[in-house]
């Protein structure tokens, strides 16, 4: 087999434009919306749970700290595929009995949310803990309780610092949402990866995977650059010149004393 033949074969396997063209409408109509719904829903739930875990992790209550620690260690320590299978298949029958719904979709969202919560919790915790202790002290000195001081002053600063890491986590979530194909989603619930996979297995050609790859990259690459942009902006800030302390000496009557 000479080089030309190899290239030709690779071309036919991966860049069969006809196969790609055929799968694209379905990607737009079914795959893309489902991937976005999975990623955004579990991203939002994961962020809320993650914030709760972060606050528990820095709480003065040792029980709360332990629960957060164990949860985080377990969920971060398991392969995503295992978590999705265990939650999806394990809790599937219970949900079916309780709600009568046979759709594994909510379980897919739950599994992704619980996984990302563990990572997002650690991101928030490191951000909140990096805020100078003086901020909490100054807020409390004004007469705020611990809760309001954290909510109004400390947490907003901590979150701001970890925005790049948080967006990176959302990128990971978009990619990990592909694993939910393991739960056997209904035809209307399939996301980008499975649409590609279905088309690949019926046609015997891998080009639909390339189409899926393009869809993922179209979402993740802009987000990556968005991360870099926030990162730069947080690091350098908006430049503004400091002024000399012109009024300092003339403020007080004491200045003349």
């Amino acid at each position, binding site marked *: 087999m000479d080089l030309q033949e190899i290239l030709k074969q690779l071309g036919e396997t991966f860049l069969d434009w006809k196969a790609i063209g055929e799968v694209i409408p379905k990607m737009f109509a079914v795959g893309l919306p489902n991937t976005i719904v999975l990623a955004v829903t579990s991203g939002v739930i994961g962020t809320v749970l993650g914030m709760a875990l972060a606050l528990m992790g820095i709480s003065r209550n040792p029980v709360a700290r332990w629960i957060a620690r164990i949860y985080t260690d377990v969920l971060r320590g398991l392969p995503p595929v295992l978590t999705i299978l265990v939650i999806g298949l394990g809790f599937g029958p219970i949900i079916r009995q309780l709600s009568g719904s046979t759709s594994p979709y909510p379980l897919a969202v739950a599994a992704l949310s619980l996984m990302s919560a563990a990572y997002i919790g650690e991101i928030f915790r490191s951000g909140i803990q990096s805020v*100078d202790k*003086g901020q909490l002290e*100054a807020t409390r*000195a*004004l007469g705020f309780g611990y809760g309001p001081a954290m909510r109004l*002053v400390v947490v907003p600063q901590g979150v701001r610092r970890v925005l790049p890491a948080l967006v990176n986590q959302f990128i990971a979530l978009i990619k990990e949402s592909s694993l939910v194909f393991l739960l056997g989603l209904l035809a209307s619930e399939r996301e980008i990866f499975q649409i590609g996979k279905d088309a690949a297995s019926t046609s015997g050609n891998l080009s639909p995977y390339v189409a899926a790859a393009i869809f993922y990259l179209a979402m993740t690459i802009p987000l990556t650059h968005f991360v870099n942009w926030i990162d730069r902006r947080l690091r350098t800030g908006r430049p503004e010149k400091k002024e*000399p302390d012109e009024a*300092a*000496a003339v403020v*007080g009557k004491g200045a003349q004393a």
Partner: protein
Amino acid sequence: MSEFASGTLTAKNIHLSFGSNHVLRGIDLHVEKGTTASVIGPSGSGKSTLLRVMNRLIEPAQGDILLDGRSVLKDNPDELRRRIGMVFQQFNLFPHKTVAENVSLALRKLRGMSKEQAREDALAQLDLVGLKHKADARPANLSGGQQQRVAIARALAMKPEVMFFDEATSALDPELVKGVLALMTDLAKGGMTMVVVTHEMGFSRNVSDTVTFMDAGVVVETGSPEQLFSAPRTDRLKGFLSDVL
């Protein structure tokens, strides 16, 4: 005549330990309404900790704290701290908020003022420290001296009965110290009750009504500035003064 609703602050026999480290060993401090007490002493003598105990950022292990003669240890500590303003060495302004928001935050959230009312109050307070024109700047764009004056405005906005200054000029460049000290002098002359932990011996000697010298968690000497600076009685104070003057 006082511009402020000042109160009288008394600390009685305050004890505090961090683990085996006995930081405060029976401190007494009395600051009469409208007067300024400066607290001097070497690093690690417990001066800053004493301030934090007196507004209950740290709870004392033993002793009593009285405001206008009434013990405040049973009060809600958050409410006590609304009556005592505090200014820190590192300013501790909120970097994510504008200067005006730094001053108005507590007015809105704790005093329940409307956004407009709180901003108006904040601007008036900023005007008093000469920084009204910086209301919409971020703290990071202000010099250290300006930041500390904003911090003073933030504390004053709550109309405190007592003001604490914890080495308020120690982190400032030398040329910026004067402006902040001038402002503190104004407050003292305006009748604010103040407790000033400081290394500025000039301020301590010229502005304060009483001086307290602390070392290793105890009050070694207390009295008028004249007494302490001109006629120190103990070797420890003599030694300290010869080190810093």
